[in-house]
């Protein structure tokens, strides 16, 4: 007897359906969170009115009436300019700190693995001491240390190589001079040709198999161009009118053009991202089934594109800002090229400058504008943050090197490579891939740790922001500014690190 088997696809009742329950739970939680935020918002708005506080962005354009101890502009004429000074100060510490901390950390990390007992123990003591003491304590210590020195006295007047006093640390420095930007053009062209040269030598190496010294050739090209440019840079003066022309082009451009370009650009980027995302999901049989997650992402991306496009169209100010910025940039370049007062710019691009102690006003001994004067605040935060991050980088490097398979070390020594050669040619390149993500993390930490400059009165963005909101009472807008700034820095830094990370991953099989 034939039995009919019927297949019926039964959906469970609504209150037991997992999908329904999941979405219900999410929506309920979302509603609760939204309710809490709404309550906070209305309470906040109410409190702001009651207590006579204000929330506005006028403080960005109003003259702040403060002066800043060091930076690109000691008497900023608007709040936004003051914040810019703070940002530049923070970047000064961050960039120089990252460079030095990486070098120092790598050296110490390798030293930690050395067979030499003294070197090994010294590195170990350094790492254990610095890592286990809170950063703020170290920063205070460096600040206090500098204050133990005497101030500059009459006996100190004159040009120095290096001078330490309670007013700061003065070291010699190289400064860009008149012909700097023209010379820079030569260097940039040289970099391009260096890349071409590098590629050629690498191709030569791969075809012939003999040592091609690719890096040496490339470096030599750059140096050659730099040397030629040192003497020949006035030739670049013709670029001056070019920049001027571009600047006037931007000046003449109507705002709506820029708005349209930006809006189309936002939509275009969103569309390109969606297309790339969908391409990634395409299988030979057609488009893969989209999960909740994927739909969510596509919706989110298109929403973001539409919102940004709308923002650009509605807020003309943004486009104005962009136009002004471009125009100012090219006018700046124009000023640096071509004819200065009295003919072409001749003169060396770089200038060697030594610090000096001079008498100012009525009997004050200050550092003049020669060399670089590292004030107490900058010294404390820079040394503190660099040494601290270097100790963490040392541990990261050490872990990376140890993670390279032992077989590689043994194979290298079997091939007859010395330890330093095997380190440089075999181990470090492989370790680099492992080191990169945590290294990026340490860079982020360094950037965030510079915010401790407030403790030693170094005028980076947190201290400048605090001074501004003390003067104007605009605490909430300043806090929002900080968050946007730091989030952008984190985003940019982690994107850079992720980009290199991905490049390294692709190389691997």
């Amino acid at each position, binding site marked *: 007897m034939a039995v009919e088997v019927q297949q019926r696809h039964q959906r469970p009742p609504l209150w037991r359906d997992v999908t329904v329950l999941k979405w219900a739970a999410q929506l309920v939680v979302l509603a609760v969170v939204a309710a809490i935020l709404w309550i906070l918002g209305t309470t906040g708005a109410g409190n702001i009115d009651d207590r*006579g506080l204000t929330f506005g962005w006028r403080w960005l354009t109003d003259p702040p009436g403060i002066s800043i101890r060091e930076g690109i502009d000691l008497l900023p004429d608007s709040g936004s300019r003051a914040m810019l000074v703070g940002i530049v100060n923070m970047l000064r510490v961050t960039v120089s700190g990252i460079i030095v901390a990486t070098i120092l950390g790598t050296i110490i990390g390798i030293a930690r693995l050395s067979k030499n007992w003294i070197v090994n123990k010294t590195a170990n003591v350094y790492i254990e001491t610095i890592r286990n003491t809170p950063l703020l304590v170290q920063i205070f210590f460096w600040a206090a240390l500098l204050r133990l020195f005497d101030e500059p006295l009459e006996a100190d007047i004159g040009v120095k190589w290096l001078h330490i006093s309670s007013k700061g640390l003065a070291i010699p420095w190289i400064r860009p001079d008149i012909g700097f930007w023209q010379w820079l053009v030569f260097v940039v062209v040289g970099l391009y040709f260096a890349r071409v040269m590098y590629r050629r030598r690498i191709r030569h190496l791969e075809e012939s198999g003999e040592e091609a010294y690719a890096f040496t050739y490339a470096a030599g090209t750059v140096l050659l161009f730099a040397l030629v440019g040192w003497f020949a840079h006035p030739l670049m003066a013709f670029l001056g009118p070019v920049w001027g022309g571009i600047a006037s082009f931007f000046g003449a451009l109507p705002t709506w053009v820029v708005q349209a370009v930006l809006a189309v650009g936002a939509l275009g980027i969103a569309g390109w991202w969606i297309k790339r995302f969908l391409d990634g999901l395409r299988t030979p049989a057609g488009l893969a089934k989209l999960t909740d997650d994927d739909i969510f992402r596509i919706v989110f991306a298109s929403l973001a594109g539409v919102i940004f496009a709308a923002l650009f169209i509605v807020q003309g100010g943004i486009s104005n800002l962009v136009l002004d910025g471009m125009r100012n940039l090219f006018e700046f370049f124009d000023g640096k090229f071509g004819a200065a007062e009295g003919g072409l710019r001749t003169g060396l691009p770089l200038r060697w400058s030594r610090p000096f102690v001079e008498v100012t006003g009525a009997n004050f001994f200050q550092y003049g504008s020669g060399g670089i004067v590292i004030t107490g605040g900058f010294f404390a935060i820079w040394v503190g943050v660099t040494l601290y991050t270097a100790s963490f980088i040392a541990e990261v490097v050490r872990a990376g090197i140890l993670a390279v398979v032992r077989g590689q070390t043994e194979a290298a020594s079997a091939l007859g490579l010395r330890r330093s050669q095997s380190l440089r040619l075999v181990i470090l390149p492989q370790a680099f891939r492992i080191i990169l993500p945590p290294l990026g993390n340490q860079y982020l930490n360094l950037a965030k740790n510079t915010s401790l400059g407030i403790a030693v*009165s170094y005028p980076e963005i947190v201290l400048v922001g*605090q001074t501004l909101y003390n003067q104007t009472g605009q605490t909430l807008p300043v806090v929002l500014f900080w968050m946007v700034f730091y989030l952008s820095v984190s985003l940019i830094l982690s994107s850079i690190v992720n980009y290199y990370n991905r490049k390294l991953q692709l190389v691997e099989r």
Partner: protein
Amino acid sequence: MVKRFVLLIAVLALVAAACGDDDTVDETTATTAAVTTTAAPPGQAAPGGTLAAVIADGKLDCGVSTAAPAFTEFAPDGTVSGFDADFCRAVAAAIFGDADAVQFRGTTAAERFDVLKSGEVDVLFRTTTWTMSRDASGEAGVGGDFGPTTYFDGQQMMGKRDRGFTANSGFADIDGAIVCSISGTTTEKNITEGAAAAGVSITLEGVVDNPESMEKFAAGTCDIVTTDGSALVGSKAQLDEADEWVIFPPSPISKEPLGPMYRQNDSEWADVINWTVYATIIADEKGITSQNVDDMMDIDGEATRLFGGDGELQTSIGLPADGFLQVIKQVGNYDEIYTRNLNPVGLFREGSLNARFTEGGLQYAPPAR
């Protein structure tokens, strides 16, 4: 799993319970969230106001400096002394009859106004200069109100003798100097404007509070330090044993009337603060001190109204009948407060703006009638 659940409880319990101050009863948070408030919303003239809130709280939250020599000093064991601290105690004595019913909150110059406006403190006795922008509300102003000036001060500068400064130096002599001043104060703006007006160029180094600026000055990081004259005199008395520092110019470069500051639109509270200060000044005018107040409380009608009798004036502003009597008894009159705190550092009333109005000074109180 046991641990985790217990910890989860602890999370929610502590976070929710954190909605109450250490010292306020839990229930004010529950009631005020939904129903009409019984506690005073800070900064508003609701029925009750700050006075009712302070009385309900049982103590006065007084905002003072973190470290201003002779005005507010935190001793290692936590006791607070100083000119401003004593006035805080006077207000507490007036309200509660107990000069120790005070909780001191040290604030930096930068955060003092926020602390006042948010309600964390009830009054600021914090060497705050009375200026128009601080009185004003709105975007340009701070939005507070001031009581009677307890100390007429002026901004001055301090330099080192071996740089050639004398008591008669002036703006022209500070050209090219690095000047330390406290961020967020009127002194910062004054020195900038003064230097610009005198045509000299200075570099301003901002510091957080007075001890830091003294540190930097002593170490040589700053060439000049500028702040209220009283703070300079106080610091010099404590730190400059070799008399190497000198304060100039002889007449201050700005007016700095220092006094109590409280929130706007609270006239009842204003009356309490103002008349406490005036009571000390009136007692000083009459020569009534903490020693002789019991005997002297009847020397004339005004003294009786303030310190003896049925205390009608006191109760009409919300204080207990013996409020001002307790002020004089437990803290002293203006002269005692001044002498106790400021004389040891070399600030004297005679010849200064803080002398009695009968002796050429500016301390003058309206009649208590």
